[in-house]
């Protein structure tokens, strides 16, 4: 890992999707075994360039995600490294049985790319808002489940995906320009959490990922101002979970808060709770969507509406500490 934390809460001028699209474009030039399958949403993540540059390896499957997932699995069976994209809702709910049986159960690796993670689906509304997508993929044996925070983390993850040869991978990401958390060229290691702040005075640990990393960093600053020291971990790999890091944080700080852009019934909070219950029972508070459906609106409104703000993280930390 080579991580440069910026953490200035400034919006990146680069669209997050380009961290994926430009990286894939480079990878496909270098590795002729890489194929790309999309479901009429290339225009949404700027991957039309792949079809233009690699017409024999980048395919439109149209608006038929179940078939597209199966085609991706079939391509994998012929030795291809296959990336498959649709919106988060459609790359999970709409093709779950195909991903489960044709790919995962069959021992075929497909790299699923799921755009518009959680409330970032914003103006497409509740029908398009994936709040359980990662939970569905967590439930499939041998999967890798990822929730990157920004452009550079997404790019770094994408470069590593072809090295995963066992199990289906699932990467949920944001299309638009979001807060830049990390400096250009930062490199991450799938399966390893990133400790963003720590000290020997920490009274709790915030474990987070995706768009909630920046909110958690803001929460860290607010708590610091009040004299409360907390650890912050970017756990962009939900599965396989970096259990060692979770257990260490629980033992050293004694309270855990998870913060996720996802339904708390089946996401990051759940996998952390599983780990803690088995290894080191610890008080935990869950920031995230509280078992609700999505709805339409600006992302800022939705983050307020579902309690995905630094203030919610701060409150959760105080509550967790009070329960110790």
């Amino acid at each position, binding site marked *: 890992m080579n991580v440069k934390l910026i953490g200035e809460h400034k919006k990146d001028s680069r669209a997050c999707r380009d961290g994926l699209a430009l990286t894939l474009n480079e990878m496909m030039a270098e590795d002729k075994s890489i*194929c790309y399958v999309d479901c009429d949403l290339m225009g949404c993540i700027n991957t039309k360039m792949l079809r233009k540059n690699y017409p*024999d*390896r980048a*395919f439109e*499957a*149209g608006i*038929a995600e*179940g*078939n*597209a*997932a*199966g*085609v*991706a*699995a*079939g*391509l*994998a*069976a*012929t*030795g*291809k490294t296959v990336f498959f994209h649709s919106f988060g809702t459609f790359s999970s709910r709409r093709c779950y*049985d*195909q991903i489960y*049986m*044709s790919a995962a*159960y*069959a*021992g075929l690796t497909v790299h699923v790319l799921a755009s518009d993670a959680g409330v970032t689906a914003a103006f497409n509304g509740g029908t398009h808002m994936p709040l359980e997508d990662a939970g569905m993929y967590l439930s499939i044996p041998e999967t890798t489940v990822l929730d990157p925070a920004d452009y550079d983390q997404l790019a770094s993850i994408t470069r590593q995906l072809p090295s995963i040869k066992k199990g289906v991978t699932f990467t949920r990401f944001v299309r638009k320009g979001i807060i830049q958390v990390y400096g250009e060229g930062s490199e991450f290691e799938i399966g390893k959490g990133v400790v963003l702040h720590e000290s020997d005075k920490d009274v709790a640990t915030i474990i987070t990922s995706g768009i909630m990393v920046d909110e958690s960093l803001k929460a860290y600053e607010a708590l610091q101002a009040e004299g409360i020291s907390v650890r912050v971990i970017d756990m962009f790999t939900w599965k396989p979970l970096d259990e060692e890091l979770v257990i260490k944080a629980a033992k050293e700080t004694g309270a855990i808060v998870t913060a996720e852009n996802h339904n708390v019934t089946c996401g990051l909070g759940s996998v952390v709770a599983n780990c803690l219950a088995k290894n080191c029972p610890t008080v935990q508070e869950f920031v995230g969507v509280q078992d609700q459906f999505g709805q339409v609106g600006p992302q800022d409104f939705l983050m307020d509406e579902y309690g995905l703000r630094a203030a919610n993280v701060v409150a959760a930390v105080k509550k967790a500490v009070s329960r110790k």
Partner: protein
Amino acid sequence: MNEKNLKVLAAEIRLETLKVIHSRGFGHVGGSMDLADLMAVLYGEVMKYDPKNPRWEDRDWLVLSKGHAGPVAYATYGLMGYYPMEDAYTLNQPHTKFPSHTDRKLTPGVDLTTGSLGQGTSTATGAALGNKIDGRDSHVFCVVGDGEADEGQVWEAFHFAYAHKLDNLIFFIDKNGYQLDGPTDDILAHSDLAKKAEAFGLYTQEIDGHDVTAIYNAIQNAYATKGVPSCIVLDTCKGKGATFAEPKHDHSSQPNEEQWAEAIAAAEKALEEVKNA
């Protein structure tokens, strides 16, 4: 093409299919037995494969999208030397390599995993696409049940295969007229399946699915047709050659030992007759 040899092979496949299912005592007899003639043509004459190297890159592929027909594949692969035939007599036993539905991770010769109906059409399509990218001179054969054709995914795959001009892909629709709950016309009637496939842009033929020469010729016609995938509708009799299953076209069967003995004796007799014809 030697018609008699293929008829003999088909009779051997029927007999072994019965023995494989008999080893467990119950199973999907109907939809396995009706594919024996197709399997004989594919593995006895048409397909490129190497039983000692089942994942040979230049092989032809078979995808039984109607994965419950696994036993007919296990009988065929055993006869072709992928493994000793007796291995398949562990059907559905704990830790067997021969499960009800075909599984590429378990059974030598099985190219893709199937079971959830409709899905094999898409994975077969993906395999055909992958082989085409690599310029391999190989074909993918995919067998779909007529009941299975209720699944919308089948038609999504046909649509994709047409749009991507996959002329190395041949679908067979096993039109035996029955699905689990009864006759397809009663459960969810199709309009003409061949016309539907044709309307999706596939080069479509409809033949007697128990006529080995007709099957062979239809495949040759498909090979000669460039630029579009093919569909061959096989008119078949569900349970063909299984004395206890054929009269009622059962989906799955649990005959008693007397019925098994009668069926196996009849299949042995049928084999002798075709050998001596």
